[in-house]
């Protein structure tokens, strides 16, 4: 009885302490232990060996934890751990944005697990010269704080090199403690960002700053996550005096030349190749493509589109078209990874594939290119690289995805086809193949003795025995567990 009473008292004290408490490393940061396991790109029915990632999460109230998305890419198991007591509980991902590299977790079995923790508030007002603290723990749970100094900000990728965001740079040595992937960064006890990279050579840290976190959390509030919008243009600088004269830009200041407009993007509704963008949302754009940010100075125009407005918002763009000034309003959209011909990234889901008679067909994705190693841009087959660089070549013909024959598993049905690999499939049994579903439909539904499979390149045409394929597939299904993944 006595010990029970003591325990009750302790809880009460903690609760009292929490009410008026300031965030601190001990009370506002928890350990996050994640087990990650991605799908095998070449044997898509398998997952690769699991790895472990030990990092930190920031308590953000409402029983939620904020971490970088990298912490939980392809997570199969996530644990939260209190550094002081080593108490653990299972957690789940509530929301994740891989482009913005942010995720929200919550305890999945014990909703009160974080009740004795002190949530962070966000500090979005960072400026050069600010002293901030990176928070982490010694292995015994003792908090460690390291002061670093904010120096500047730029627009760059977080961890996917296709998505550019505001990145704050800070200087000063940060000692690495084990289990410290992603350190919360505090300013005056509030959460100023997450430290996502640190180079010990030049003592430079990069911080994913609070304004981006705030955008992410605000977007989540209505339960429907829209994501960070993209404009969908490529642009060129207009520093060259001859080019400016040619564009009749002599009277204007700055401006960038629109050199490509991606079909179905935000820009496609109003911008054309040859337009010069002079302003976005009231900010003048200089001839390098930067605008003047009140705190950070020159920042890339992409921040005006991606970092501040939300998907669905309208942005005003001032342009020069054929020598005349115009203002256009564009509704901002976001292209989801699955909307691309070739998915730019894939996490938490396996490649879509189907095995027919031992031939492995798969939708081409960026992770597939990674199989060719660091030099994939020179080592991958040139036709696949061309498709990646110029998806419109295929999109115009109605392709939603590129289905490729990745390889032939040696079976009685694939005799003579063992060496075929990385071929773009165009038609099967006379039906155009625009995604893996088309291929399954074209083979499963066909009343043929041999499946006719056509490729864009050599050998152009092969046939598979339909009956034999069915028998082979049944055996392979037993061996692999599954022979297709269509969603």
């Amino acid at each position: 009885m006595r010990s029970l009473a003591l325990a009750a008292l302790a809880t009460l004290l903690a609760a009292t302490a929490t009410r008026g408490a300031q965030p601190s490393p001990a009370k506002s940061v928890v350990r996050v232990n994640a087990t990650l396991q991605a799908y095998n790109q070449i044997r898509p029915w398998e997952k690769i060996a699991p790895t472990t990632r030990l990092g930190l999460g920031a308590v953000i109230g409402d029983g939620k934890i904020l971490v970088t998305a990298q912490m939980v890419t392809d997570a199969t198991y996530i644990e939260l751990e209190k550094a002081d007591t080593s108490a653990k509980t299972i957690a789940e991902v509530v929301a994740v944005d891989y482009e913005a590299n942010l995720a929200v977790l919550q305890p999945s079995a014990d909703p009160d697990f974080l009740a004795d923790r002190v949530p962070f508030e966000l500090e979005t007002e960072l400026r050069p010269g600010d002293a901030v603290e990176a928070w982490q723990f010694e292995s015994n749970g003792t908090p460690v704080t390291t002061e670093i100094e904010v120096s500047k900000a730029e627009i760059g990728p977080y961890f996917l090199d296709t998505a550019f965001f505001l990145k704050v740079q800070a200087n000063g040595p940060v000692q690495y403690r084990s289990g410290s992937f992603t350190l919360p960064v505090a300013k005056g006890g509030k959460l100023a960002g997450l430290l996502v990279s640190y180079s010990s050579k030049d003592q430079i840290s990069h911080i994913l700053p609070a304004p981006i976190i705030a955008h992410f959390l605000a977007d989540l509030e209505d339960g429907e996550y829209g994501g960070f919008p993209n404009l969908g243009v490529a642009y060129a600088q207009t520093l060259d005096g001859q080019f400016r004269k040619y564009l009749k830009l002599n009277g204007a200041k700055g401006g960038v030349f629109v050199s490509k407009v991606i079909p179905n993007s935000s820009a496609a509704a109003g911008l054309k190749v040859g337009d010069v963008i002079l302003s976005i949302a009231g900010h003048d754009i200089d001839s390098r493509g930067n605008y003047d940010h009140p705190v950070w100075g020159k920042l890339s125009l992409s921040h005006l589109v991606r970092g501040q407005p939300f998907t669905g918002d309208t942005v005003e763009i001032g342009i020069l078209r054929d020598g005349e000034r115009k203002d256009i309003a564009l509704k901002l959209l976001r292209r989801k990874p699955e909307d691309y011909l070739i998915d730019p990234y894939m996490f938490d889901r396996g490649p879509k594939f189907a095995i027919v008679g031992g031939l492995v067909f798969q939708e081409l994705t960026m992770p597939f290119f990674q199989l060719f190693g660091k030099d994939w841009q020179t080592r991958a087959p040139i036709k696949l690289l061309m498709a990646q660089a110029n998806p419109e070549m295929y999109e115009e013909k109605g392709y939603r995805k590129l289905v490729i024959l990745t390889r032939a598993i040696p079976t009685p049905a694939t005799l003579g086809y063992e060496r075929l690999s990385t071929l773009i499939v165009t038609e099967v049994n006379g039906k155009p193949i625009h995604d893996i579903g088309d291929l399954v439909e074209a083979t499963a539904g066909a009343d043929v003795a041999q499946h006719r499979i056509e490729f864009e390149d050599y050998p152009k045409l092969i046939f598979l025995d339909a009956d034999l394929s069915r028998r082979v597939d049944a055996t392979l299904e037993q061996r692999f567990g599954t022979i297709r993944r269509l969603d």
Partner: protein
Amino acid sequence: MRPHIILLSAAAILQPQWADAEGTRAAAGPAAKAEISNSKKYEAIVRIECSSLNPDYRTPWNTGRDSGGNGTGWLVAPNKFVTNAHVVSNSRIVYIKKVGDAKPYLAKILHIAHDCDLAMLELEDPSAFEGVEPFEVGGLPQLDTTVKVIGYPIGGERISITSGVVSRIDFLNYSHSSVDQHLTIQIDAAINPGNSGGPVLQGGKVVGVAFQGYSGNVAQNTGYMIPTPVIRRFLKDVEDGRYDHYVDLSMSEFTLVNPAQRAALGLPNDGIGIMVAHADADGSAGGILRTGDVLLAIDGRPVMSNGLINYDGEDVNMNEIVERKFAGDIIKLKVWRDKKPLDTQVTLKRFIHYLISAKRYGEKPRYVMHAGLVFQPLDRNLMTAHNIKDLQVRYHFTAYAHDEIYKERPEVIVLTTVLPDAINSYLGGFTQGIVDEVNGTKVRTLEDVHSALQRGGGDFDVIKLLGNGRPIVLERSRVAAAQKRIQEKYNVLRDHYLGDAEREGAPPEGR
């Protein structure tokens, strides 16, 4: 990875060799007398010394880099010497030296066949070889029979003889052009740099020309010679005073091993027939064969499902039939199409578009330099010299023939270099782009670039690159002065070279 095959001409600076030759003669004086019969025996085998100019595609306006080397040759007919094309490629001066005679005799190239690495030389003054008996060209030697390789390889100045057996007869890549494949014989006699072009003898007849091998750290005792079917074809081709090159069916084929593939095409499972995967539109079989056709017989010989035919009792590649033919020859094909037999024929011709991937020799690089921008037509030499990594250019290079890029662009023009100057200070990032349009003219050849820039189109020269919405813009009023300045600064004597009309591999009709 494919092992690197080395060519066997000794690349060395010419000057020291002259000095060596002088020294040898003085020292060997008395001994030479005693071996007169030997000199006599080998006097139809000559040392070929060559000094050459190798163009630099990075500075196409320059004359090129000097180099020299030597190889071997042999007398095939009065005053007709055979050697390898690579021994005398890009040559400026060629000398022939006779055994036991240090005097160099000036020679000229009568024919040079880069696609089979053979050349024919002739002396300005043939008197030194009067009465010398030319070699007879023999047949295909049997496996495991002995052959002798004679020539002037590294390791000394005088003639060298090695011997070995015929190890293998196969179709192999000829590394001189790097894209041509012909019959090749592998022997285990030592063949070393300098042996190139020399005769391989059996029973006193020439049965091959030594030409390539592996460096010692890749494979041992593997030397390659060009066999007599290839030599005879070359000799016959040049009989009319002109070399007309090899011809090609210009198609790719896929083995018919899979029973379903055979059943679907309506073929019995008898091991006969190979499927046509693709026939190049501009090639011999273009418009005659199509994807899904099955080639049952070529020139009356059944084609097996692995692409081999039986020829003189040996299973050889079906292309061996085409190998022995000449431009304009007709070849009969038995084809299986839509489950029915079809007899057809093909008039053989050279497939010119494959040359984009061949190493090229004896050509002055073509270019246009305008305001410091250097435009050059895409070929293998250009890819190598500029170490081109750009995906778009690599695609055009790789798929030029197969994807019929030549229809839209007989020449793919690349902006290779920007010679920095005030007029182009913001244009450095445009290199390795493919030129699509100049001053409103769609670019099909280098000539198009030149004439469109000469003509102009208003106040600005506007150059559009493929896949790049941002055009290159030059103020025309500034170009002339810049051109002069750049030519002086960078020592560009001529601002363009468009080539001779009869240049080998010039784009065909439609330019």
